[in-house]
């Protein structure tokens, strides 16, 4: 470019990225489209060639498309997955050159300056790209030019490579839209009769700049190489995996823990540099006979302190069968969350930290989901008045409101003998003969008809708080629509 070496840029455009991605996983024959909900209408987002041949187009409402083409198969679009897929493709494209950047939501731009000869020339490199992408089931259009703008224009509007230094000769016949202009600017230029890049380049610059602002000429200069344009290669996502290979196999638990301590130090330094904390870690121990065993640890809170994480592995490592010895250790943080650096002060209490550490440690023993906390829920139904959530993945919130006394213990309704709307004077419950001294009630609770619940099929419940002469205070209910008496709870 400016330093005398001819810069060469490839632009890859995937015109049907979204539908190709889905069809790679679920091959379909015949017309197929992805549908995206925009506003309150389902519109076609991306279609395959068979659907395009039927006269369907992007942005068409799904109902119209169905009328045109009754056998159209459709699936909901997932733009987030498409973007992820494009990142995968970007990573793959670094096989051709190190400078690969994203270009829009369905394109890549590669700076192949000085890399083409490794593939036997530019023509062979483009053929290789085409072949690989076709094998992967992706339709692609490639443009090769001296500048990013030229490559972009050639990929979208005139497929094929431009010779080095071709400049205007390669781009001249392409329409104005190939200059990456706003649609309304393109239309205005076309109205002026400037339909091709040649026509625009031949026009006096000053009136264009006055009429449309500097943007149009800037884009033209970028395409022709008069103004430089950078390609930003996408950053590699940080990789949180470290490994240790040993010259001799080890088998003692202490040795494995010592190796693990070394790995943890490196990993935690990496996490600290990224201001991240590990939420789940996997230690893979590979034995000399090629067997591999995993030890997984999950934490109640993101952490990057080796001294805290190391003891959590002790239990798992103790259960490992070392066989003839372990010669490779690999530690990976499989789940990472942001953990910003915090100000340490003397007022902050470490009780929360200690509790989280305890939850992590107990979690390695009984499973992190089995340590739970209660969250209030908005329901009159006693069983649904609260939620149970894993403590590691929830925070205590909400207020507990109970207008009427509620029992301390709840159990599934246990039937007792009783008749009528008032609590029975004497009944047997759990092999105990109880007599009622006082009953408070009824408190009527109606089932939540909008939720399916077999336990509430019997309809309304009239709850009674019953005190027995023996002292026990029970929570009874009567189902008037389906006569019967049950015990559901016990008060303190």
């Amino acid at each position, binding site marked *: 470019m400016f330093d005398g070496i001819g810069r060469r840029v490839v632009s890859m455009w995937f015109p049907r990225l979204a539908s190709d991605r889905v069809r790679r996983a679920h091959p379909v024959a015949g017309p197929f489209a992805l549908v995206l909900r925009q506003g309150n209408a389902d519109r076609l987002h991306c279609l395959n060639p068979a659907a395009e041949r039927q006269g369907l187009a992007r942005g068409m409402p799904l109902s119209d498309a169905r009328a045109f083409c009754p056998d159209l198969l459709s699936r909901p679009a997932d733009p987030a997955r498409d973007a992820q897929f494009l990142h995968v493709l970007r990573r793959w494209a670094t096989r051709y050159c190190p400078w690969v950047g994203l270009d829009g939501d369905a394109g890549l731009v590669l700076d192949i300056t000085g890399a083409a000869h490794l593939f036997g020339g530019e023509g062979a490199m483009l053929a290789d790209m085409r072949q690989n992408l076709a094998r992967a089931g992706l339709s692609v259009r490639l443009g090769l030019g001296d500048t990013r703008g030229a490559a972009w224009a050639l990929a979208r509007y005139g497929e094929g490579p431009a010779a080095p230094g071709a400049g205007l000769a390669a781009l001249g016949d392409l329409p104005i839209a190939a200059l990456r202009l706003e649609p309304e600017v393109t239309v205005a230029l076309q109205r002026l009769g400037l339909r091709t890049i040649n026509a625009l380049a031949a026009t006096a610059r000053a009136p264009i700049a006055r009429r449309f602002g500097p943007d149009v000429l800037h884009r033209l200069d970028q395409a022709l190489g008069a103004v430089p344009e950078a390609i930003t290669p996408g950053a590699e996502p940080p990789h949180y995996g470290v490994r240790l290979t040993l010259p001799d196999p080890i088998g003692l638990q202490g040795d494995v823990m010592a190796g693990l301590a070394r790995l943890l130090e490196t990993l935690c330094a990496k996490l600290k540099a990224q201001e991240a904390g590990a939420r789940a870690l996997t230690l893979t121990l590979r034995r000399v006979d090629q067997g591999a065993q995993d030890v997984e640890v999950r934490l109640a809170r993101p952490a990057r302190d080796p001294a805290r994480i190391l003891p959590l592995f002790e239990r798992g490592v103790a259960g490992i069968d070392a066989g003839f010895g372990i010669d490779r250790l690999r530690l990976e943080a499989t789940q990472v969350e942001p953990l910003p650096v915090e100000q340490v002060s003397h007022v902050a209490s470490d009780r929360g930290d200690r509790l989280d550490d305890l939850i992590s440690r107990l979690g390695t023993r009984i499973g992190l989901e089995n340590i739970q*906390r209660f969250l209030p829920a908005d329901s009159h139904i006693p069983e649904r008045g609260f939620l149970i959530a894993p403590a590691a993945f929830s925070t205590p919130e909400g207020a*507990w409101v109970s207008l009427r006394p509620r029992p301390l213990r*709840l159990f599934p309704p246990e039937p007792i003998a009783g008749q009528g709307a008032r609590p029975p004077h004497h009944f047997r419950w759990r092999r105990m003969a109880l007599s009622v001294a006082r009953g408070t009630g009824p408190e009527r609770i109606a089932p939540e008809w909008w939720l399916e619940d077999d336990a509430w099929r019997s309809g309304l419940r009239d709850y009674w708080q019953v005190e027995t002469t023996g*002292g026990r205070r029970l929570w009874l209910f009567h189902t008037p629509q389906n006569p019967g008496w049950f015990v559901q*709870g016990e008060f303190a």
Partner: protein
Amino acid sequence: MKPDVPSCYPLRKARVHEACGAGATGFAAIMAAHLSGPVLWLREGWRAETLNPVGLAAFLDPARVLVAQVRDQTEGLAVMEEALRDGAVPLVVIELGQPLDLTPGRRLQLAAKAGNSTGLCLIPEGMGSNAAETRWRCAPVFDADPGPGDSTLQSWEIIKNKSGTLGAWHVRWDWAARRLDVVPPAGE
């Protein structure tokens, strides 16, 4: 002369205590209410009977309670020992279904001492362990003359005490003030 409740109540710290009887859950809830900080409640996951946090809210903030679902009693005791030794939770409550041997009971005591936290085992009647510091029998009592609000008259009887005498009291939980009132038993 009987010791008054405050001498053996609240439960001595860094020890493991036991409670039995129909009012044991309420006893544990009142113990938790007197402490600050989180409470770990261990129960066997297969049991259908659950703690009701809405009812618990009358005693303490249910957000302080962490419930650990364990597979069986052995696992529960292991978890309890670890939690006691750690000391991050001032009170660990476990619901036991089978009698506790001297060895596990003693291990719990040592763990509680190391972590300076209190343990409470809710046991079926007559299945106490020799290692327990105190054992309480808690039973709800019928209140012929309840005050305003809910009646919560209970009889608390200390039936084992390693460092003190035994005794029995009638107590009542004051809902509004969240306080325990000792009431003279009727007829005395």
